[in-house]
């Protein structure tokens, strides 16, 4: 009896147990809200499931159906286009603004906050609705063009060539988080490098390409991976602004998934789409990691 009690105290005193106890809230959340739903979704992806009635196992049917689904290929194309255009643009934009804001003046703090603002409110429904109104036929963009004497009856959201670009511009506008990361790593570049190069006679442009950019590559890499994943999973903009119109030219993969799951009641198929998306995102991330050794500088300063 005494021995048992001693064991319990001993047991509770072990560091690994204490760690486990303290991380229990997270572990429970992880299982309940991530792992279990994921498992269920995997199961649904092999089922005929219409939400209203219980799922019926159907094997690989949903995955086979995908290969014959034209819209599936179309949405992959649209999503790739969106991610591959908007992410590099956003990073370039973030870097330029970070370089401008790098020089500390009195107003820098204000500007940093101001430029970060779109990222805070960026994913929200309100901004999406605002965007939709701006690009409407009688919206502010056309009004501005009209004030400049240009043709102003163009339907930005109604034309297959321009509709996707309204979404891309919105994504580029939300460059704040990348910008902040760039700013902090810019600060870590030792000023001695710049001083030395000035002595050697290097100009600003040369300094940028030979000092700043190489030393920023790890940060660029990090931003690229994170933003690429975000780009593939973008949902709100498309769902609120275009709903995939016109003619599915702006239909993001995630929105198609939602439509299949909840609008057409093909929830099993929607779950299968989600798992294929996971594969695609994983593949793209691997691909970016594969190129790492060719352009990312990892040596010391």
């Amino acid at each position, binding site marked *: 009896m005494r021995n048992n009690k001693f064991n319990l105290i001993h047991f509770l005193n072990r560091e690994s147990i204490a760690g486990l106890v303290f991380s229990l*809230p997270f572990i429970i959340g992880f299982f309940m809200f991530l792992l279990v739903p994921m498992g269920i979704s995997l199961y649904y992806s092999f089922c005929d499931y219409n939400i209203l009635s219980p799922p019926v196992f159907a094997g690989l049917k949903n995955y086979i159906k995908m290969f014959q689904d034209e819209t599936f290929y179309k949405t992959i194309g649209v999503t790739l286009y969106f991610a591959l255009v908007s992410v590099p643009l956003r990073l370039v934009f973030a870097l330029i603004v970070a370089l401008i804001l790098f020089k500390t003046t009195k107003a820098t703090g204000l500007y940093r906050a101001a430029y970060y603002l779109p990222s805070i409110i960026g994913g929200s429904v309100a901004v999406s609705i605002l965007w939709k109104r701006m690009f409407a036929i009688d919206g502010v963009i056309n009004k501005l063009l009209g004030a400049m004497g240009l043709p102003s009856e163009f339907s930005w*959201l109604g034309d297959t060539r321009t509709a996707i670009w309204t979404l891309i511009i919105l994504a580029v506008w939300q460059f704040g988080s990348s910008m902040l990361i760039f700013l902090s790593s810019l600060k870590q570049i030792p000023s001695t490098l710049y001083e030395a190069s000035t002595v050697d006679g290097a100009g600003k442009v040369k300094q940028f390409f030979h000092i700043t950019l190489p030393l920023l590559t790890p940060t660029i890499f990090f931003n690229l991976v994170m933003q690429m994943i975000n780009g593939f999973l973008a949902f709100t903009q498309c769902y609120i602004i275009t709903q995939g119109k016109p003619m599915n030219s702006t239909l993001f993969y995630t929105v198609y998934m939602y439509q299949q799951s909840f609008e057409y009641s093909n929830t099993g198929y929607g779950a299968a789409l989600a798992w294929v998306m996971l594969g695609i995102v994983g593949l793209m991330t691997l691909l970016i990691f594969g190129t790492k050794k060719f352009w990312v500088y990892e040596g010391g300063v």
Partner: protein
Amino acid sequence: MGKRIISLSLAVFLTVMLLAGCANKGTSTTSDTGAGSKTETKTETKTEVTSSADQTNAADNAGLTVSWWGNQTRNERTQQVLDLYTQNNPGVTFDGQFAEWADYWNKLSTASAGHTLPDVVQMDYKYLEQYVSNNLLVDLIPYIDNGTLDVTGIDENILNSGKVNGGLYAIPIGVNAPALMYNKTLLDQNGITVKDNLSLDEFMALCKEIYEKTGYKTGAAYGDGDIFIEYTMRSLGSILYEKGKLGATQEQLQKFFEVYEKGISEGWMCDPSIYTERTIGTPEQMPLVYGSSPATMSWCAFSYSNALASLQNAAPEGTEIAMTTWPADDQKAANYLKPGMFFSVTVDSKNPEAAAKFISYWTNDVDANKILKGERGVPASAKVAEAIKDQMDQNQLKAVAYINNVVTPTSSVINPPAPEGSAEVSKLVDQLVEMVCYKQITAEDAAAQLFQKGNEMLAD
């Protein structure tokens, strides 16, 4: 050392309490023995309705969730009636939830998966069959038998539209008919009159004439799914959805797409780009009442007779909206009376008795219907319809006159409820109409695609 043990055991204790707290939520209701015991009433009413004092008690004390789709006018009036009911029955409180048409059904299907459907849901004829076949609605006949739900005022034929396989799963709360709403002020100014029961060719000629005289275009049913194609198929003697397949031939389907093809090539059809900026199905955003210039507006809208009030409210000051029939070559075969909306009680309701009682109130109470003013359609109960006649506004009287004088003489029985898979076909129709309007495909291609893919979707 001692401190460490104390803090550790404290942490363990707290975690255990936390877990116990979580688990408790699930079980606490069973230990509850009062009249409001939730789990108890649920299992009880699912199997059969017992008529006892307890039940009446439960019906008087309940929190009911009522959900509907609609517009601003409907939301306001419905909320007023819910408040009135709470005033008369202080034990009953409501949580009113509303959404727009498309979001509403997404929300409802998700809720059904989580077994959290609202107690009372506004049901549409289109979805009734699906919800009943998946056992999501409560058969209301026992509540009629025990006197909770009074449907004596409702015409037998109309009441029957809520029946599926012998059970009554939905109580009609308004009668409607398809109606072509048009800008009467505009047409009067230009000396154009619209007669009822236009044929498709006459309609298209009229659209062209209006476009040439006024610059206003025509917003035919667009993004509304299958409503107009179903109507057109009816006029050609076919039912769009049959069990497991499309009931129309490819040639018949083509006739529908040709309206859009012709409209776009002659210029009188609204440019499809205007719809990309709007929420389709919202009266306030229909091109009939909303737009920056005649080129982005329409002289008409394909809608239902009960939408007159909200369209008239949304229209600019001084514009009178009038209604006529949708165009069809054989109006008698095409037109129909639609038991527009229903109220149903769901299986997730913890207090179906109270829900049924509320529906009964909605159907029979004159004061409530004086507030509603037939916004969901002519009240299903003839007594109520008669009683609120004096209260009706201009719009409502017009709708009643339209249903009685125009639709009733030339119409036939409504199609059977649409089968599963029809939602996807309906979306396909939207996409094909869009492609025809963007001149990506011809009406012939569109019909061929709809015939092939639509049949596949329904066969699954």
